[in-house]
């Protein structure tokens, strides 16, 4: 192969990659199902933070969150052929992620909060004292959330921290919008009781 054709092939590869990075999720899924592993890599790069964050919210330590996030994408790799496009790919990945997390917390409950978490001080506050107080409050909130029933916990995390709509959460959890709102209400009430005790 001469230099000219090598250069044009490299250009074609770059152009294809650029196309993929700017492609919409449903196009990426179609490309992946047609055999493009690059498309799957773009899916991972695009959604890895969101998946990691929801996993971290459940398990509250980096190692477990990283393992869970990896597991989510491995399941996505195997299960994308079943993605029907009724929801967004992000919502579908959340569903896979939440299921992984719910299975994980059902089998493994951490006894204590990891040290790295308890020392995490909110950097937003200018006043150091306020930062420490806020950090303590955050630790209390985390402990209370960890005691919620799994579906209430999932609903609360998705609504408050991932800022998903009730409709999206209903799709992720396989519930109705009304059930999601009821779960959210009971989660907040239980948190009130836990934070007061």
């Amino acid at each position, binding site marked *: 192969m001469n230099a000219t054709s090598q250069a044009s092939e490299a250009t074609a590869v770059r152009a294809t990659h650029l196309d993929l990075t700017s492609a919409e999720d449903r196009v990426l899924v179609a490309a992946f199902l047609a055999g493009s592993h690059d498309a799957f890599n773009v899916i991972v790069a695009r959604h890895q933070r969101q998946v990691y964050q929801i996993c971290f919210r459940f398990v509250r330590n980096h190692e477990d969150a990283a393992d869970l996030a990896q597991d989510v994408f*491995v399941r996505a790799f*195997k299960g994308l052929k079943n993605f029907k496009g009724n929801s967004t790919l992000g919502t579908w990945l959340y569903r896979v992620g939440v299921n992984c997390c719910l299975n994980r917390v059902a089998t493994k409950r951490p006894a204590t909060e990891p040290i790295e978490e308890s020392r995490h001080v909110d950097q937003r506050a200018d006043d150091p004292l306020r930062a420490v107080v806020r950090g303590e409050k955050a630790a209390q*909130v985390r402990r209370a959330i960890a005691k919620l029933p799994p579906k209430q916990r999932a609903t609360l995390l998705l609504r408050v921290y991932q800022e998903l709509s009730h409709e999206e959460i209903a799709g992720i959890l396989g519930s109705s919008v009304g059930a999601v709102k009821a779960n959210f*209400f009971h989660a907040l009430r239980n948190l009130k009781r836990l934070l007061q005790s």
Partner: protein
Amino acid sequence: MTTHLSAREFVDAIEGGLTVDRQRHLDVCAACQTEVETLRTIVVDLDSDADLPEPSPLFWEHFQSRVNAAVREEAMVPSRAAWWRTLPGAGAMRTWLTAGATVAALVMVTAIYLRAPVDAGRPVDAGAALEETVVPDEAALVLGGAEWEFVSGMLETLQEDDVRRVLTPSRNAVDAAMGNLSESERKTFLRLLQAEMVAGME
């Protein structure tokens, strides 16, 4: 007098989505107002934990490779027991295969026991009491490599509820399991079991 807000309506209230009609109730109901305020306070408290520790940039650089490696590993691990999961009616067949694996294991152990040589050093005494028994060579009771591989491969796929279902006596359990299979599935199962048993005996 209208009823107090429901659970869903409280959520609508704290998120500013209450209907006009129900808002009118909230405006005049102290109890509901108190509840809404309490819920809003909790939501504000939740904000204290909004920030997450961010992993290092190196983590994100390597995460994709990590996922790809895990995907490759999954693809490479041969699933010894998975071949039969793809068969039609595999779900129903699994119960019968589990029973078959247990029976096969018992058959093989019995076969090995019966193959154990008689002690050649002792003269056979025609007049010896019939209750005298030959103690088999202990080593002969250990399953050989291929035999154990067959049994352990089948046993690997067992889940606790399968084992319990098989070992717990239940009326007509085997008949019920067989009854779940179609005629062609039964023939397929028997052919596969025979092939595995032959392979396990070699």
